[in-house]
């Protein structure tokens, strides 16, 4: 299977760099799959799970924040606010954060706070989903 070069940079650290066979990311209108030879594109990413299959290896998942993806010259670049491996995520903590964010969303607050809490909620949900990928295997 043909492969392409993938580079994932998160704000905290360079997350991944290497050859990949396939990649699935979250766009605002749903999941989006990418294979080698994809056409040129720049898109906004929403917080969610990123799945990528390394050349001749198992599929890997990562919980990611919002950001962008750029496909050009047969190379894929992903820039996200945060990215985590499932094993780095404490499921209980993610669950708690999710509940806290839901709770906070119910309370009356300013528009700024509302946006922040909404982002928190999306992040917590994506972390939780990524952490459960491990159990499926």
């Amino acid at each position, binding site marked *: 299977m043909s492969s392409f070069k993938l580079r994932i940079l998160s704000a905290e650290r360079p997350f991944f760099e290497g050859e990949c066979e396939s990649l699935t990311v979250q766009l605002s209108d749903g999941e989006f799959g990418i294979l080698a030879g994809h056409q040129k594109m*720049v*898109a906004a990413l929403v917080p969610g799970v990123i799945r990528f299959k390394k050349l001749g290896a198992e599929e890997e998942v990562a919980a990611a924040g*919002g950001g962008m993806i750029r496909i050009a010259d047969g190379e894929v670049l992903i*820039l996200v606010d945060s990215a985590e491996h499932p094993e780095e995520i404490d499921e209980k903590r993610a669950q708690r954060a999710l509940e806290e964010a839901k709770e906070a969303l119910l309370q009356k607050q300013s528009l700024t706070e509302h946006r922040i809490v909404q982002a928190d909620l999306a992040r917590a949900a994506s972390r939780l989903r990524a952490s459960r990928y491990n159990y499926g295997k």
Partner: protein
Amino acid sequence: MANAGEIKNRIKSIQDIRKITNAMYLISTTKLRRAKLELDKTRPYFLTLKEEIGDIFFDVPGVRSKYFWSEERPIPNRRRVKRSACLVITSDKGLAGAYNHNVLKLAMDYMEAQDYMPQAEKAMLFVVGEYGRQFFRQKKIPVAKSFLYTAQNPSINRAREITNVITSLYNRGDIDEVHMIYTDMQNGVTTEVREQKLLPLDKDDFQQTSVKNTNYTEEDFVPSVKQILDNLVPSYLTGFIFSALVDSFCSEQNARMLAMDSAGRNAEEMLHELSMEYNRVRQAAITQEITEVAAGAKGQKRAEIARQKEA
């Protein structure tokens, strides 16, 4: 001249202070190293991000965004600068030489040049660090009240929160321009206080890289150029503010290291002088005692001889 006991006391207290300054020096060294490491890890992300924003801005004709300003592409529905806000980064505590003083001096100069009129209900001065807040309170210059961020151990999350506060004010149109005053670490030794415009972004700050053969067209963007830029710019600002926080923190630690180093050296010098004086005083006391004993002994002897002669 002080007596030996007093000098000894003084030496003891100076030794104790030197222990403290030495400890502060060491703490600053480790904090500096840790902060730099953190920054190095985030650098690739923000440099790439900056390149991408630059590419999009230069490559796509007619991009307009509320975050950009240039003469030929004015921001739609926006007046010329009326209200500007300023983010000032100071430290939480003193004992760092002229570090805070330099920042606050530039901040005052800036406000004077801008004809900044402080209004209590609409203060647009965002201050990081307790030292700066105290300073403006004393000068009776109102600062944004709920903006309480520490300068200690800068983290990307804190930078993100600061960006949130600022961009939401900017998007609402409460402020038209945002500046930042911070201390830049140039090469590990020299530091310089700087004033930098944060928003709107200036085209000149973004170099057209164009090594990659991008040649974007409007159709390459999902869902739209505007959406993507609106998504990316806050992240870029976060990175910029984060590196300013880290640079300022490093400069602070650096200033403190220098201050503590010279304090340590001064203590060393004082200890040297004091121990000389202590020895001199002690010697003088011994000499005096010997003289007294000798004189006493001599007097005794003379009295004895006189008594023997009488007998």
